[in-house]
């Protein structure tokens, strides 16, 4: 059955504007629509009424690029689990519902416009150490020269599936980026290729994370619950171990 909904949406013209919540109505929303398709309907309606459409980030619309965000009814990526906003479907809502839509909020994620935030702080953490320093000449050793224990390889892969959306930061009362950074540190810590630079990597990435204004981790676990990719808290524990070992060495 199609739905009529009330939307309360954060509107903010640009980074320096104060911003406020504005109410909108949409009707005849199919339960098979994705959440972003519902917003497409709203925007088409706004354009036709000579109003300004709501700006939101999105691109792949299949849950992998990490571009979409949105804080929906008080939860990053909304009420469903294990999905991004673009994969959230309207069948999760009921006719007559009021839905509150806000941007991801954190000091390190300033609002650009409406529901769009600037997550370049995440990129800068990666610049600080989220890589293995190997030249791209192709003249490396054969890929099968170093066997990797399947369990470690699988765990590294799971950590590497982080899409960098920022839901962990938005869900954390301290706006901590520990899950995001822990995932990258873990991926390389679990693989033999990552060992050489392990010490510098964790120290540099954590330093950059602190400089960007992300908060501390107080182990509430909210990040893991809201993570659309199910990145585990173990990654934070592993990063803490790596950090401690690196600090003692360093």
């Amino acid at each position, binding site marked *: 059955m199609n739905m009529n909904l009330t939307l309360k949406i954060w509107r903010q*013209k*640009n980074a320096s504007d104060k911003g406020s919540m504005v109410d909108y109505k949409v009707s005849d929303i*199919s339960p098979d629509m*994705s959440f*972003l398709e519902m917003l*497409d*309907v709203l925007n088409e309606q*706004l354009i*036709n009424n000579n109003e*300004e*459409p709501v*700006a939101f*980030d*999105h*691109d*792949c*619309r*299949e849950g*992998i*690029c*990490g571009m979409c965000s949105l804080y929906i009814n008080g939860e990053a990526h909304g009420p*469903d689990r294990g999905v991004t906003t673009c*994969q959230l*479907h309207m*069948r999760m809502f009921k006719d007559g519902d009021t839905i509150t839509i806000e941007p991801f909020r954190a000091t390190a994620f300033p609002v650009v*416009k409406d529901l*769009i935030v600037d*997550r*370049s702080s995440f*990129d800068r953490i*990666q*610049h600080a*150490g*989220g*890589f*293995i320093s*190997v*030249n*791209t*000449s*192709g*003249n*490396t*050793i*054969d*890929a*099968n020269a170093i*066997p990797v*224990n*399947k369990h470690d*390889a*699988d765990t*590294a*892969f799971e950590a*590497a599936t982080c899409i*960098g959306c920022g839901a962990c930061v938005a869900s954390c009362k301290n706006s901590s980026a520990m899950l995001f950074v822990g995932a990258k540190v873990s*991926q*390389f810590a679990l*693989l033999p*290729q990552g060992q050489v630079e392990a010490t510098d990597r964790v120290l540099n990435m954590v330093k950059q994370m602190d400089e960007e204004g992300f908060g501390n981790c107080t182990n509430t676990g909210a990040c893991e619950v809201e993570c659309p990719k199910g990145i585990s808290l173990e990654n934070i524990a592993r990063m803490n171990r790596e950090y401690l070992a690196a600090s003692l060495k360093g």
Partner: protein
Amino acid sequence: MSLDSKVPQGPIKDKWTDYKNHIDLVNPANKRNIDVIVVGTGLAGGSAAATLAELGYNVKAFCFQDSPRRAHSIAAQGGINAAKNYQGDGDSTYRLFYDTVKGGDYRSREANVYRLAEVSANIIDQCVAQGVPFAREYGGLLDNRSFGGVLVSRTFYAAGQTGQQLLLGAYSAMNRQIGRGKIKMYNRHEMLDVVKVDGKARGIITRNLITGEIERHSAHAVVLGTGGYGNVFFLSTNAMGSNVTAAWKAHKRGAYFANPCYTQIHPTCIPVSGDHQSKLTLMSESLRNDGRIWVPKHMKDVEAIKAGTLKPKDLAEEDRDYYLERRYPAFGNLVPRDVASRAAKERCDAGFGVNATGEAVFLDFASAIQRYGKETAHVKGLNENDAALVKKLGQEVIKNKYGNLFQMYEKIVDQDPYNTPMMIYPAVHYTMGGVWVDYNLMTTVPGLYCIGEANFSDHGANRLGASALMQGLADGYFVLPYTIGDYLSDDIRTGPIATDTKEFEEAEKEVKEKLNFFVTNEGKHSVDYFHKKLGKIMWNKVGMSRNVKGLTEAIAEIKELRAQFWKEVKVPGTNEEYNEELAKAGRVADFLELGELFAKDALNREESCGGHFREDSVELDGEQKGEALRNDKDFAYVAAWEYKGEPSDAVLHKEQLEFKDIELKQRSYK
């Protein structure tokens, strides 16, 4: 201008090595004085930017997303091919080359494809060294899977997220160079024109998508790695922002556009559910390793399934038509994508589609679950005859292999594919056509290069699964860095390229005028209104099956729609702010031109080859009756179109394809 592919002389297996031994190099000190612009940060652009920076060039990289990590390469699922022959199943560089040329229905350039196969093994070594976590076997070595159209297992993968892992690998290589200051990254910037000085590409005009500022950027060479144009169909598996604009602007500045009609319609996508649909989602081809495709044999069962009175899993084996296994016994469910897509369309056109729209077939994992379940029970010494146990064990194996895809399917369709067959239908996925490039990956504009999906070169008329990732990374990591050096060696004394020249000024003025037009045109329809209309024309008349009447109509309709667009498009807001509608308007304007050229190219090519199927070119009898019929005598060429104003005025240039190492044959998968 005549087309010179610049393919080196000599035997095919020595061409690339000889070429590399004889090109001009730029010494490290001089590289510091040379700037290169790379547009797009997917597998091709990202790997090129990282490598060029590492070599010592000053790189400026651009992407329209908020981070290079978002490029749509990230959504590639199944895997990446490489001729490693780790499985010992007879794979070799030659065999990968052969499969790719055959899979492309003999419409690609042999020398390029051979080079691609040759560097493929290096890609895997490189990615593993970067920490890309490919799937491994219990012994710790890399695992492989097989893909459509080939008889060996050469595909490396990371669950159903191979593109993500490879892109994050390239992104990490970029990050290292950004951290060192060798790449200057411009996120949320869209390229709106190429600037030519004295006939050479020397810069680009961009729009900062946040502030609306129009910027001039200069360099000694410009590289486009801006992806394909599948969104000309509105609905496709591409990302919402994927567009043809950079490639099209290059075309308008003199780069020929090759084979626009070669489009891959991927057989296994989630069917359209309604008019609200904004994009389509792919279910990896790797699923065809384990899934069997079928529709009911009898119309009464189709109707019962549609009415909900019969569950698909309850339909008896003998009442099912596994049409790929029936028609193509040698390859079965693993026929190439174009063949699988047309076969699905054929069944659905005959009325056997299994969902409400009549455009869906089943992809069924029940037998794979049984097979894996029994195998696992046997290995673990459990009861192989315990049906519930076997099912549970089998489902676990499937979950390990395809878990993320099954979850994605369930979220979108609201059905559990572990217990009921998936429904799938073909959707636009990849474009083999693109900007024409020579062996050096240079376009017909000197100093303007094009890599990855954006160029036309390696896949002919149909791309095999797991070859897009291979090509993107091959171009960016291992081919372009050599070929561009040969060109740039002439620029060591040029010095920085000034941007305060009339060429930059004029290009910027044109860009600004167009943007101003959009925000001041008080039209009555949104950009999407036109995009959807264009998509409908393309899908219905220039889609999976094409004929003269439909193509002729499409050309006229697109032309008319384009005229209407320029009169009636409505773009809210201003230029000096974040304005997605404005960005979309520019992209759709270019799609409206490309779409017409696309149809014109399809009309010109009076043969069926790969993804291009002409109803008037089919086998009339014999074993291959009804299959696509190629015409090598008249059409074994690359159609490269030169811009002359309106798409209808485009001038055709032919690059004749020579097949010296592979014999031209009818593709048979029977």
